[in-house]
């Protein structure tokens, strides 16, 4: 079956994030001076305004800080999925991501739910970090 959901448009800044996901690692940029993480990937640290930053692997653990359920069909590839949730995850390191929840089972989606990252290989080339309720 063809995967027809939108694929990441990896650019020179976000490329390493998606490359990391392919290797099963959740990466974010960290300012070398302030140690502050920032996301989405950017050319410079918002603290020093220069390229003095590093890619750092995150724990992948966090909590759901908000979520929505998309009812409107905006992307053809998600047309069969509506209504589907999108979660906002606040990771231990302070990075916030929007993502998908998997393996929810019978549990109800709630703000504050602890989650951990999983890696979903959606095509031969693309792996997306998603989250499941923490064990």
């Amino acid at each position, binding site marked *: 079956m063809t995967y027809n959901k939108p694929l990441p448009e990896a650019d020179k800044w976000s490329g390493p994030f998606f490359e990391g996901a392919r290797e099963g690692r959740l990466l974010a940029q960290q300012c070398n001076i302030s140690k502050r993480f920032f996301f989405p990937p950017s050319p410079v640290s918002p603290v020093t305004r220069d390229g003095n930053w590093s890619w750092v692997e995150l724990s992948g653990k966090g909590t759901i800080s*908000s979520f929505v359920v*998309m*009812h409107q069909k905006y992307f053809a590839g*998600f047309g069969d999925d509506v209504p589907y949730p999108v979660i906002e995850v606040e990771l231990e390191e302070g990075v*916030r991501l929007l993502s*998908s929840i998997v393996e929810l089972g019978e549990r109800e989606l709630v703000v504050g739910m602890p989650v951990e990252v999983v890696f979903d290989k959606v095509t031969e080339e693309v792996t997306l970090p998603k989250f499941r309720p923490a064990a």
Partner: protein
Amino acid sequence: MLDWNYRDKACIVGVGSTDYGVFPETDAVGLGVSALKAAVDDAGISFDDIDGVILNRLPYDRFAEVSNLNTPYLQSTPAHGRFSAIALMMAAEAIASGAATTIALVYGNDGRSAAMKYGGDPNFWAPWGFTSPGASHAMMFRRHMAQFGTMSEDLAHIAVAFRDHATKNPAAVMKKPITLEDHQNSRFICDPLHLLDYCLINDGGVAWIMTTPERAKDMKKKPVYVSGFARQDDFSQNSLPPNDYWYPALKKVESQVYDRAGISRNDIDGLMIYDNFSPTVLFALEGMGFCKQGEGGQFVRDGMLQLGKGRWPTNTSGGHLSESYMQGWALIVEGVRQLRGEVSAERQIKDVKALQFILATAVAGSIIIRNDA
């Protein structure tokens, strides 16, 4: 820091608007020029009196060509609605500084005919199915619900109040009265937001004429003074739904706007709040100190924002939720008509002297306009 010296240095002397709806027979430029012609007539001036132009959502070169307006001062602003406030502030600053004397501010939108979707574009989060400004506001509102106990029903009170106002406004696109139940029963677009939490995309044009208080005295109608304004940007969470409802930025604006206008909150008779989605009304009220943070949901209940009922009649035209999404521009037109006493008696805020425009967006801003400066 230098004293802020723009108080009452510029006036709105003309307003014009087209009908709002579906007009495939024209385009954004055509709608903008039509609105401007109405505003010029409203001010009782001629196009030759205009020596400055500030445009929003319009191609500046084509607009200048089509309107045959060639001035020494032209500014063009991007399509985001926050530029309604920015354009007004820019004009006041330009007039106060002498850069221009009489400025035409024009907005044109053919989004409905062009089938604007406001969602489904490529973006960083698209692989996870996230898209649209509405979804971003839904994400913020869910956080607000979890943090403060706010409920979807609170938003229903906002939608109902604005719709009640729209029933008194012949120009409003949606004039059928709604109940709290109608709001709750309307379909989800992005849970927790329902259809009736969303603004109405339409075609339309809006224009204002602004000038100096001296020139304003000779014009056809009583001037509306731009008494005070303040702005604080916060783009630090531009790629995510902000987790602070722009509250710190709005507090900064609150700390300045009343002082600059030389009046207090109690002198304000009504509000115009940028209601692209109903939660921004709560964020604006909380950030501007009309209630404590987290109490907006309780505050808007039982007609607080409703004409003839509450202390703070808000968006008396119906706003973006029920009149039309003219991205802030038509809210200012409504404010001017209120301050001139030009709206129908059932829609008129009694003894109105001062109104406040508030935007809870990445450009947090507020403008106070008066008729008695």
